[in-house]
């Protein structure tokens, strides 16, 4: 038996409709070939202190339609580079969802109203359970389609195709 995959960290809370322009705006297009510099601006226009405060393992917790807008995968990439271990949202925009999974960044659908900023969370990816340790409550998250779960388990789409050479549905 493989041990359960467990993520642990603090919640950084955001509202509804966090667009890719708030995650990493188009004005920083000139930094897209310098990812460490680009990543310094992650979530800057939604929360200017986020990049400094976020620590490895922490979670982005947001409302509806997270990641709407541009197809720029840099949005998922800079969130991952910031050390965020998973994104918990009420709903996620289609392109961002694929991008996050393709970057090996779990994006989980759950009732995020129950989680407050600063709460300590533990996410058991294997058993689909989110525990808010601060509040002592448990939440479940929606099922991820198998093809995306396989990609996620390989750490992202590039690793998945490098390993299998093709899609294996």
């Amino acid at each position: 038996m493989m041990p359960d995959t467990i993520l642990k960290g603090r919640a950084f809370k955001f509202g509804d409709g966090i667009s890719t322009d708030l995650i990493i705006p188009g004005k920083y297009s000139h930094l897209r070939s310098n990812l460490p510099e680009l990543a310094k601006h992650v979530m800057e226009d939604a929360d200017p202190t986020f990049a400094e405060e976020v620590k490895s393992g922490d979670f982005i917790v947001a409302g509806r339609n997270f990641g709407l807008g541009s197809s720029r995968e840099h949005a998922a990439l800079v969130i991952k580079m910031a050390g965020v271990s998973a994104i918990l949202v009420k709903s996620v925009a289609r392109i961002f969802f694929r991008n996050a999974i393709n970057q090996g960044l779990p994006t989980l659908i759950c009732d995020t109203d129950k989680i407050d900023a600063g709460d300590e969370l533990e996410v058991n990816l294997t058993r689909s359970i989110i525990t808010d340790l601060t509040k002592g409550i448990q939440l479940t998250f929606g099922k991820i389609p198998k093809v995306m779960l396989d990609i996620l388990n390989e750490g992202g789409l590039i690793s998945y195709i490098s390993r299998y050479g093709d899609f294996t549905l």
Partner: protein
Amino acid sequence: MGKTLNEKILSEKSGTDARAGDIVIAQVDLVFVQDTTGPLTIRQFKEVKHGSLANPQRTAIFLDHAIPSPNRQLSNDHQFLRRFAEETNCLIFEGGTGICHQLVAEMFANPGDIIVGADSHTVTAGGLGAFATGMGSSDIAIVFALGKTWFRVPETFKISISGRFQKWVGAKDLVLHLIGALGADGATYKALEFDGQTVSNMTISERLAVANMAVEAGAKVGIFPSDSVTKKYLAAQGRANKYKALQPDADADYERAITIDASELEPMVAMPHTVDNVVPVSMLAGTKVDQVFIGTCTNGRLEDLATAAVILRNKKRHPSVRLIIAPASQQVLTAAIKAGYIETLVAAGAILLPPGCAACLGLHQGVLGDNEACLSTANRNFKGRMGNTEASIYLASPATATASALTGEITDPRKVL
């Protein structure tokens, strides 16, 4: 049970009986990147596969977002993309040729095709009956390598449109109204399929504008049937042989049916900072604007420039408004020069930019100042979109934008004409 347009296309391209909810692997007819998503895509492609593309002549790079380049870093990105094109023999379209989505329509998109691009507005080609959708760099890198990708077959909303538009009301007002009704996530993961007598009468330019904004309701595709209008457009673009009729089956299964009477529509405006924050122009009359931007993959086509030229003939922009115009492609620009539109627009005080994305994404060529308002014909008004979180963006049709450039405030085009 019959099939929707997207079920038909995905069935053919996957060799399966594709139904909403299925996951299929489908062959891709055209894959592309633009200059701000291309470099990451190519680095990821190189991680998977060193060497050849699956279909070099159906792989395209468009330099459109940052042209002419505003800085050294983006110039270096352009060099990187040109070198890749040389090495792999893929197609590349230099800065000034046009916006990727307009060039895809002019040169590539055919009814029944599957088109994927590393740009969310790839949905535009749905105006020609293609299943076209935007994806991120990893997905596109894999299509570069394999020539195929996986899709979840979307459920479909049927949007039936009847009635004649009032004068100076059109496709942009229709799609803003629709997004306002659906909400910015109202069609997430869904296909929007357009239908009805009004659709049969819409030009390809109008269909492309509507399909372009499908993604603003979260949709995967916005798709039009292929008919005599499509046939005529393809013939004019030298692709008469690529035409095929494409209609949904009468007994296809739709998740939702929405009807719109075009004759009841007014000019519509999306207010800051979300595309679904839509109201009739009358509710905003008198709102001061500092900049009017006419262009983009939504509304930078010849018909849009014609509308602006008709309204501005022998008139001047309001002295406090910067009027920025960017044709969507070289083909559009050339035709607009021949038709005399450009002379009219420049005489009216417009700043003419080269064919490209220009001010739309906040990179250059029209970044807004603090507390400024821009009325734009683009598709997005997110906070910070035009380079400044302290500025406001309103979205409207070319007619409303031009009327507002004349008065310096948001104006119903029916009032000035």
